[in-house]
C-alpha cells in the first residue's frame, strides 16, 4: 500500500490523537455517533447510502461505481442525531494483514455496525466475515450494536422465501457465536430492499436505538395519540424520511408507505411553488383528507423534524382545532427535550 487515500488516515493509530488535544472537537466527536456500513463487495452498501441520503432513484443505483476507499459521510439531517456514516468497501478485508487498519480506532468510536448480506448471491459466503467482525468489534467495544440487513429481497418473489433465508442466516450466525461463547452479543436481522420502503423502515429502527431520548419521545407520542384519538404518529426526519420515533403500537409498513408518500408529495409540491425563502420553512404544515374519513396531518416541529399523524373516523372540522393545539404543545415539549441535551453537552464541556 504505497498510496494511502487521505480519509484512511483518520483510521490510523496516530490520526486519532488530534481529537484528544482539542476538547471542543472531541465533545463534538462524542456527540456524533458513528454508523459503519460493511459487507462483501457488490452487496449494496453505496446504493443504500445514496438512495436514503442523496435521494438517488433506486433505478439510478445501477450506474454507481464500486467504492474503493473508506468513505465518511456526515449526516447532519437533524439536530437530534448528528451521525457519521462510514462505508468500508467490500474488497478491503479489514482483517487482512496488508490492509493498514486500526481496529481499535475503528470500533471504539462506533455505535452501530450495519452488515449487509446480498441474498440474491450465495449468502453463506458472507457469514464468515460477519463472524470475524462481530468477534473483533465486540472485544473492543461491547456496546456496539450489530444490525444485519439481508438485502436485495426484491429478487425474492415470495414472503416465505424471505423468511426462510432470514431463519437460516439467523440460525447459522447464532450457532457460530454460541460456539465461541458470545451468546451475549445480540444481532438484529432485517429484510431490506431499496426498491420499496423496507430499507427506510430498517434504517429507522437502527437510528432510533442510537437516540438516548427515545423512551421520552415514545411516551410523548403515546400521550398525543391517546388525547387526540390518533391511530398512528411518527416523528420524521424530513430529508431522509427516516422516522426517529413512533408510538408503541405495532409497526405497519403500509402505514409507513402512506406517510412517506405524503411527505414526498408535500415537499415536491411546496418546492415547486416555494420562492426560496428558508425562514418560513419551519412553519410547513399540511393536511390530507382521503375519502372524507381518513386524515393525515403533518407539521414541522423544528428545522428538520416533522410530526406526522394518521387518524380515521373523526370529523375534520371538530378535530382540527384540537390537533392544532396539541401539536403546538408537542412542539414546545420537544424543545424542552432538546434543551436538556444541549445543556448536558455544555456541562460536559465545562
Amino acid at each position, binding site marked *: 500500500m504505497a498510496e494511502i487515500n487521505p480519509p484512511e488516515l483518520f483510521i490510523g493509530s496516530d490520526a486519532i490523537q488530534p481529537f484528544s488535544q482539542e476538547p471542543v472537537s472531541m465533545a463534538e466527536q462524542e456527540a456524533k455517533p458513528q454508523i459503519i456500513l460493511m459487507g462483501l463487495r457488490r452487496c449494496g452498501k453505496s446504493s443504500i447510502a445514496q438512495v436514503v441520503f442523496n435521494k438517488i432513484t433506486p*433505478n439510478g443505483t445501477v450506474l454507481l461505481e464500486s467504492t474503493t476507499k473508506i468513505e465518511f459521510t456526515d449526516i447532519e439531517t437533524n439536530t437530534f442525531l448528528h451521525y457519521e456514516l462510514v462505508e468500508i468497501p467490500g474488497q478491503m478485508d479489514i482483517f487482512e494483514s496488508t490492509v493498514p487498519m486500526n481496529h481499535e480506532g475503528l470500533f471504539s468510536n462506533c455505535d452501530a455496525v450495519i452488515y449487509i448480506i446480498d441474498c440474491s448471491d450465495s449468502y453463506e459466503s458472507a457469514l464468515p466475515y460477519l463472524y470475524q467482525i462481530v468477534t473483533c468489534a465486540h472485544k473492543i467495544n461491547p456496546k456496539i450494536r450489530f444490525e444485519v440487513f439481508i438485502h436485495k429481497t426484491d429478487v425474492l418473489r415470495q414472503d416465505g422465501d424471505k423468511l426462510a433465508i432470514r431463519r437460516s442466516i439467523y440460525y447459522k450466525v447464532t450457532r457460530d457465536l454460541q460456539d465461541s461463547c458470545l451468546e451475549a452479543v445480540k444481532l438484529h436481522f432485517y429484510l431490506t430492499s431499496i426498491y420499496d420502503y423496507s430499507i427506510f423502515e430498517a434504517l429507522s429502527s437502527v437510528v432510533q436505538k442510537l437516540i438516548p431520548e427515545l423512551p421520552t419521545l415514545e411516551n410523548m407520542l403515546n400521550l398525543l395519540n391517546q388525547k387526540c384519538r390518533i391511530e398512528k404518529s411518527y416523528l420524521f426526519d424530513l430529508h431522509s424520511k427516516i422516522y426517529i420515533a413512533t408510538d408503541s403500537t405495532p409497526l405497519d409498513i*403500509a*402505514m409507513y*408507505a*402512506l406517510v412517506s*408518500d*405524503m411527505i*414526498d*408529495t*408535500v415537499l*415536491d*409540491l*411546496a418546492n*415547486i*411553488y*416555494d*420562492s426560496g*425563502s428558508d*425562514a*418560513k*420553512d419551519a*412553519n*410547513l*404544515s*399540511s*393536511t*390530507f*383528507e*382521503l*375519502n*372524507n374519513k*381518513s386524515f393525515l396531518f403533518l407539521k414541522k416541529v423544528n428545522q428538520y423534524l416533522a410530526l406526522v399523524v394518521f387518524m380515521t373516523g373523526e370529523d375534520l372540522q371538530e378535530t382540527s382545532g384540537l390537533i392544532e393545539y396539541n401539536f403546538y404543545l408537542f412542539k414546545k415539549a420537544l424543545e424542552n427535550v432538546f434543551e436538556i441535551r444541549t445543556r448536558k453537552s455544555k456541562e460536559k464541556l465545562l
Partner: protein
Amino acid sequence: MGNKKKVLLMGKSGAGKTSMRSIIFANYVARDTRRLGPTMNVEHSYIRFLGTMVLNLWDCGGQPNYFDNYITPQREQIFKGAEVLIFVISVETKELQDDLRLYQSCLEALAHLSPEAKIVCLISKMDLIADEKREQEFSVRESEIKRRSLPLKVTCYPTSIWDESLYKAWSSIIYSLVPNIAKFESSLNMFADIMRADEVLLFEKATYLIIAHSVRRKHPDGHRFEKISNIIKQFKLNASRYVANLHTMRMEIINGDLKILLDMLTPNTAIMVVITDPLVYPAAISLNIQTARKHFEMLEKLDRAPAMQFGDPKV
C-alpha cells in the same frame, strides 16, 4: 353522438403505445408496464372523461401484418371519423425511415377519411437518451417528421413513461378534445381573480391530467404542470393501496405565506389553488371553492345537455 371521441393510437410494435395508455388511463405504475404483452390487432377502450365525454381509444397493434390490414382492407373502418391520430415513434428505433413510411401511409388514409383530425407524434422512450442530448435528438426527429407530414400539420412531443413528459403530451391532446374548454378557462380566470390566487389548475379527476389553468403570477418553471400531475397521480396510486376505493382527496399545504389547496371541484374534476397573498386565509380558499362548485357543475352540465336530449327524449 357528439361526445364520443375516436382517438387512434398507432406506431410500430414495441414503441410503447400500450404502456403509455395504461399509465395515463389504467392507473399503471411505470414499472408495471413490463408485464404488458404485445397488442393483438386493435384493442378498443372506452374512457369516460369529465363525466360526459367518452374517449374511444383504438390501440392498434403495430406488427407489420396488422398494419397492412389497417391500410388496405380495414382502411375505412379504422380511419373514418377519427378526431386525433397519435403516432408513437420510439427514439431508439433502428430504421426511422421505416417508421416514417408507415406514418405517411397513415396520414394519407387519414387525410382522405378524416381530414379534420388532429395529428400528434410522440417520440417515446426519451429516457434512453442522455439528458444533455435529448433536446437535440428530439429536434432532429421533429423536423424530419414535420417535413414528411406536409401539407398536414403535426405536433410533436418527447415522452418517457418514467417522468412527467408523458403527462404534458397527453394533457395537450385531451385539451384539444374537451368541448367548451374556453368557458372553463374564462370561469377559471375569473375565479382566480376573485380569490387573488397566483395560480389555479383544473384537473380531470380520474387521470389528473390538467385540462385548464389560470396563471396570474409568472412562474420560472415551465414544466411544473406535468410535474404536479405526476406527483398527485403517484400519491393517489400509492395511497389507494392503503385506503381502499380512494375517490376523494383533499390536500392542504401551508408554508409561511404559501398556501396550496387541492380539492374536488365537481364529481369529475379537481382543482388546485396556489396563493401567496398573506391576506388570504386557507379557510377563505375552501369557502371559495365550495361556492364555485355550483358554477362549474353547471358548466359541465351544459356540455351534457345536447347528449342527453339525444339519448333520452323524455329529459
